[in-house]
């Protein structure tokens, strides 16, 4: 690791100040991706601004019929939350499947979505559930937030503060993990809210995306039998030694079916 200055503000305002003051500052949430990246010397920030003591970014509450999850809420907290379990059990189970228990004790929703790893689970959760990302500057619909490979709509110095999830009628997340890394080879969040169905896919492509063809077929008939082949262009899907694009495309359909079955209970 290259050395860096370390800052641990107690408020969002102080975090913003520290970040502005730094020559090349980097926010740290749970650090479960950032620290391994630093250890491999793949990043060299001048300063780390640790959000770990910013209490206003923690916690889960219900607001206007939506679940609002503070950016620094850990995966374990989301997984264990009775409120989440009662309103959006799919979100609880998604959080419970991220990484391993120790990663879940440190890793946060804000860190995960700001990093936007193409195989991370939360991007599918956010897009599939039609979430809204709250920052210290604005609110961004999840559909617009995840821009590309490790790329988001966040501006320089913009900090994710919370994610609000509208409560769907039904939802479930199904993941096919990479046997080695346990990241998603394909992860699918399916949600039905009124007549709207959203199907968000992570792991398969360069970033999370919605499978509009499957959404269309599920809108009329929300059952596993209605799930057809994915409309994803095979050429745009990831292909590596763990899974070819053809296999990933197949798994999108299979995982969607399984998610729909789970959502239907």
């Amino acid at each position, binding site marked *: 690791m290259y050395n*860096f200055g370390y800052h*641990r503000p107690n408020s969002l305002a102080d975090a913003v100040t520290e970040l502005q003051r730094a020559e090349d500052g980097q926010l740290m949430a749970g650090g*479960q991706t950032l*620290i391994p990246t630093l250890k491999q010397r793949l990043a060299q920030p001048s300063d780390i601004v640790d959000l770990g003591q910013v209490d206003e970014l923690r916690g889960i509450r219900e607001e206007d019929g939506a679940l609002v999850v503070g950016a620094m809420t850990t995966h374990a907290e989301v997984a264990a939350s009775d409120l989440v379990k009662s309103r959006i059990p799919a979100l609880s189970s998604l959080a419970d499947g991220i990484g*391993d228990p120790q990663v879940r004790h*440190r890793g946060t929703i804000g860190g995960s979505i700001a990093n936007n790893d193409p195989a991370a689970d939360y991007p599918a959760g956010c897009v599939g559930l039609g979430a809204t990302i709250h920052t210290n500057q604005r609110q961004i619909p999840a559909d617009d937030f995840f821009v590309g490979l490790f790329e988001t709509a966040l501006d320089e110095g913009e900090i994710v503060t919370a994610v609000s999830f509208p409560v769907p009628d039904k939802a479930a997340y199904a993941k096919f993990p990479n046997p080695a890394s346990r990241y998603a080879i394909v992860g699918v969040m399916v949600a039905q809210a009124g007549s709207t169905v959203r199907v968000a896919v992570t792991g398969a492509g360069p970033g999370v995306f919605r499978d509009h063809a499957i959404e269309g077929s599920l809108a009329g008939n929300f059952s596993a039998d209605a799930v057809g082949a994915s409309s994803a262009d095979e050429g745009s899907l990831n292909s590596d030694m763990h899974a070819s694009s053809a296999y990933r495309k197949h798994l999108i359909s299979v995982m969607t079916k399984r998610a729909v079955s789970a959502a239907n209970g």
Partner: protein
Amino acid sequence: MPTVTITVNGQQESREVEGRTLLVQFLREHLNLTGTHVGCDTSQCGACVVHVNGQSVKACTMLALQADGSEVTTIEGLASGSELHPMQAAFREHHGLQCGFCTPGMVMSAVDLLQKNASPSEKEIREWLEGNICRCTGYHNIVNAIQDAAQQGSAA
């Protein structure tokens, strides 16, 4: 250099560290608590698992400064005196260790499991251990040890 103050196994310790000093380096190199091991550089093997404020975490994926003001328990702090913690005793009883390298992290992880789930099923135990890699035992006896510790109670 900044100073970090951490209560480790009940003892308050203050040291000057660099920003980049990992919690595991603080434990091993500054405090000479070498029971916490480093087996990988991608946060996967779990040889470095310790408890921070009662939660199991990977000490290789946390800066020492992030733990400032925390309570940390390492494998050295688990037994009370010469008496093994029930989870340690169960690992011994069921031959849940061979070379011993993954063992500290494995035991610390298992203790946390029972804190959260007092009577886990075999499947739940195996899933919980996703973040702990053992190359010697094939996990069979580790799972037996944890099941037994759960049945005995008081191993959390």
